[in-house]
């Protein structure tokens, strides 16, 4: 295992890596963006040139040293470049989730006191303008796409092109200032502030130093032996630590080429075109892929279906072993090779994963079926466990030791230990400096010896040394009976069913566990079509008795499964209901990264929870909802409540 702090001897900031690449490999592709029908490509020299110009431009526009600058928008060449520009100009990039609604944006902007905002397009600019005088300190807004921005333009709201021009022919004064600021920076100075999507309450600004970033990046590169020239598709929110580390830090350090898709709806085609070597996706992406595969194959001709299922069974049996190079017998190997030609290969191809040498999933536990599926068709999908505070990586799965139920061994330079309350603690050169302007919570999470509390309960598997996560520490509680109560653990098991999108389990300090279920419209809808069940709305489908019975079936299976694990057998679900609306970030019920805000949900739907316990058969309820355009409304419904089988 290489020492990932070595990198600090060469570089003290990430933009120095960019400059280095521009010098050494000026004409190698650095970043691409699908625009105007083709992949517009920037070489490393283009990349650095643009970054430098913008940096100078920002200074010209009066950006102060050490001041935070906000970035909001989809993954764009220009925005990635801006990250470097801000750092070069001595500032601190503060990326914001592009789909954040105005209020969420407000919090981040107020808290960070960013004076300059670099926004992608009209949509984002509008949000900022909407907040208006709530943001006294905002001075300038730069926008990328001037489509229908004509009417906005003023000397406070300007196109990025102007800023770049300013930079091109900037004054001596600016240039010297620029040099000064660049010199002043050390590996200890702040590299970025990332606002966590905060499962609870207001989001906190995680301060990562240049050292944190560099060590994390170099560690990950060495861990998976990433080679220069590998293609990566950058499609996850720029404000998310994962994308920041992958696209802004690992890319220059490992000289990977990042590719920005044209738009969200073209992601799949863009992904297919690029065929990345390194792919990162949260579980829901893989779930989505698998569902779409299954739906499409259902509509295929009979022969194809047969072939598909035959070879998928084969893959289930031996695919994983083939991937890890274990011996599977000559005949099977031959069969698998055939399958690879007519099923697996085409499948990987149509997923755009023909060339993936390393694929990661994290953020949530992934369903074993899904996980195994992708591995069995020859995609080296692995899990990692991490968090913003750690600069992503806490543990990662090394090749050959990949299992769906663990999250792997400590990442390079990471020390791991389990606190007395079963909480996972870690310490590493990449772990964060502090929460921005929030020493209180900093001290809560990080002790003086640098041990950071993850807030997750888990244990290290003896023998393998792999980490196993049970649930969020504070969510792991006790039932009235004193038995262990680990809701997340159960919820995940439920969510592994394609028909179940979300599940929320209650039972802390109660005798029994009860659950909310959110059905997955696409797959249940598809199922309904096949069963020819007519439905007008999500609500109607969710309330349908047949749907209920189907869900009940799933829950019984889960209960059976849980009962095997005596430690958790108390967590079996007694009664449940299917929610009449999807849990929605716009309503604050789940985070942007789709983590359930348990407490919030429990309060909002207190009437339902009560009903689940008081044994009533149905419950009438009224719920407030926020529509995409921000309008508010409310829907009322009468929900059925069912009981599931408990296993002694």
């Amino acid at each position, binding site marked *: 295992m290489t020492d990932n702090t070595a990198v600090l001897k060469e570089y003290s900031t990430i933009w120095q890596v960019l400059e280095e690449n521009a010098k050494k490999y000026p004409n190698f592709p650095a970043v691409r963006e699908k625009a105007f029908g083709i*992949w517009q490509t920037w070489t490393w020299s283009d990349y650095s040139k643009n970054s430098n110009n913008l940096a100078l431009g920002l200074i010209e526009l009066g950006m102060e040293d050490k001041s935070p600058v906000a970035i909001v928008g989809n993954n764009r060449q220009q925005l990635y470049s801006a990250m470097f520009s801000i750092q070069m100009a001595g500032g601190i990039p503060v990326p914001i989730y592009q789909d954040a609604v105005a209020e969420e944006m407000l919090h981040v902007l107020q808290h960070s006191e960013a004076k300059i905002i670099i926004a992608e397009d009209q949509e984002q600019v509008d949000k900022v303008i909407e907040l208006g005088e709530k943001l006294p300190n905002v001075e300038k807004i730069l926008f990328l796409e001037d489509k229908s921005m004509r009417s906005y333009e003023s000397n406070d709201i300007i196109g990025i092109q102007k800023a770049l021009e300013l930079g091109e022919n900037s004054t001596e004064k600016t240039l010297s200032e620029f040099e000064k600021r660049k010199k002043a920076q050390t590996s200890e100075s702040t590299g970025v502030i990332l606002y966590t999507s905060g499962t609870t309450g207001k989001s906190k600004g995680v301060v990562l130093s240049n050292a944190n970033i560099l060590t994390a990046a170099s560690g990950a590169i060495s861990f998976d032996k990433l080679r220069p020239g590998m293609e990566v598709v950058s499609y996850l929110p720029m404000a998310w630590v994962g994308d920041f580390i992958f696209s802004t830090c690992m890319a220059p350090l490992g000289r990977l080429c990042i590719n920005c898709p044209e738009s969200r709806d073209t992601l799949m085609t863009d992904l*297919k*075109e690029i065929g990345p070597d390194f792919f990162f996706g949260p579980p829901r992406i893989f779930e989505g892929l698998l569902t779409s*595969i299954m739906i499409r194959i259902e509509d295929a001709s009979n022969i*194809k279906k047969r072939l598909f299922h035959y070879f998928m069974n084969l893959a289930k049996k031996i695919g994983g072993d083939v991937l890890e190079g274990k011996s599977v017998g000559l005949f099977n190997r031959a069969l698998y090779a055939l399958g690879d030609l007519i099923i697996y*290969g*085409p*499948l990987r*191809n*149509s997923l755009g994963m023909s060339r993936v040498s390393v694929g990661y999933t994290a953020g949530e536990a992934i369903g074993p079926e899904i996980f195994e599926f992708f591995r069995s068709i020859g995609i080296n999908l692995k899990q990692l466990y991490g968090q913003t505070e750690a600069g992503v990586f806490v543990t990662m799965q090394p090749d050959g030791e990949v299992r769906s139920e663990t999250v792997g061994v400590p990442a390079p330079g990471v020390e791991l230990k389990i606190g007395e309350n079963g909480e996972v603690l870690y310490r590493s050169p990449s772990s964060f400096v502090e929460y921005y302007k929030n020493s209180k919570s900093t001290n809560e999470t990080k002790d003086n010896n640098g041990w950071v509390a993850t807030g997750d309960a888990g244990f290290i598997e003896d023998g393998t040394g792999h980490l196993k996560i049970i649930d969020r520490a504070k969510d792991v509680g006790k039932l009235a009976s004193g038995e262990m109560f680990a809701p997340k653990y159960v919820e995940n098991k439920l969510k592994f069913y394609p028909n179940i999108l979300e599940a929320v389990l209650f039972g802390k300090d109660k005798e029994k566990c009860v659950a909310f279920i959110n059905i997955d419209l696409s797959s249940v809808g598809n199922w309904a079509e096949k069963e020819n069940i007519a439905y007008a709305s999500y609500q109607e489908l969710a309330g349908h008795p047949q749907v209920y019975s189907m869900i009940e079936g799933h829950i019984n299976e889960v209960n059976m499964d849980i009962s095997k694990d005596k430690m958790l057998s108390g967590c079996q679900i007694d009664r449940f209901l299917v929610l009449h609306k999807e849990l929605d970030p716009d309503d604050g019920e789940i985070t942007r990264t789709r983590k359930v805000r348990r407490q919030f949900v429990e309060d909002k739907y207190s009437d339902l929870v009560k009903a689940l316990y008081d044994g009533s058969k149905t419950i009438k309820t009224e719920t407030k909802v926020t529509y995409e355009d921000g309008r508010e409304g409310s829907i009322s419904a009468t929900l059925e409540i069912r009981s599931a089988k408990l296993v002694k």
Partner: protein
Amino acid sequence: MFYREAGDFKTSYQSDQATFTLRLDKILFWGLMAIATFVVPFFVTEYWEKSVFLPFFIYSIAALGLNILTGYCGQVSLGTGGFMAVGAYASFKLMTGIPNLDMFLVIMLAGLVTALVGVLFGLPSLRIKGFYLAVATLASQFFLVWLFNKWEWSYNYSPTGQINAPTRDFLGIDVTGPTTAPWATYLFCLGLLFIFAWITRNLVRGHIGRSWMAIRDMDIAAEIIGVNPLVAKLSAFAVSSFFIGVAGALYFSVWLGAAEPTEAFAIDKSFDVLFMIIIGGLGSILGSMIGAAFIILLPIFFKNVLVGYCGIPTDIAEFTQIVFIGALIIFFLIKEPHGIVAYWRTLKEKLRLWPFPY
């Protein structure tokens, strides 16, 4: 199924608009070309040369020509036979007139002459459309054939009225006359077909080609975007006739070696070529070749299978064949107006989506 497109992305309009956008197609094509150029010549026999390859190459060129006019520009012509005659006689006069002129130049000049004649007979297309024009083009067919029958100068006053191709060479290699080697004529025609297919591709991907298609799809709309119908249609006639002229020249000089108008360039030649593009695929380069191959191979097939194998009398086989072709035309017009090539496209789509239906 065998397509692996992941990672096959385009970073320039050049590559995005390339002839073969899929890596696999490119490989297949060049592989095929390599075999055709470096392997086949060593095995090609007189029989294969004269009754399969030359007819295929030459008719492909003619079909390409007619497809430019009919498939791309939407002007149906039944004068192909006549224009081939022009090409043939032009080449004859050139070969006999300027004995040491390289055959390649002869062919090109013959094409040029035909292009001029084509423009002349294309003039009516400015006033009349659809089958009015189709019928009008018959005029060229009949008039030209008659002309080469009666005009002694055109066949050097030979008493038989027949024209015979003297020995001429391409870069020192005989490609006409009795002394030619199969591989020589094979490569000569293959080369020319390649060139003309490539030219067609270039023309139809540029603004001239688009102006043709615009005229074909909706001439009024074409005019408002600045297409001059006169120029568009006549240029189509010119290019088309050039191709057909070249085909005619090769047909006479390289393939048959001798010709006599009423037989060699009769109206059924016009129909044959028209059928090639209907069956192969209107407005498709590949289609032109598929169609040519089909119409060429069909009689051979009938001859070998029905006559040779089943021992059916020749005349019956012939009639059956006529019926078959006619029925096929009707079938394609009803079922698949885009011809065989459309089936090929669907197959390809399926292979690309495999194992999914969409």
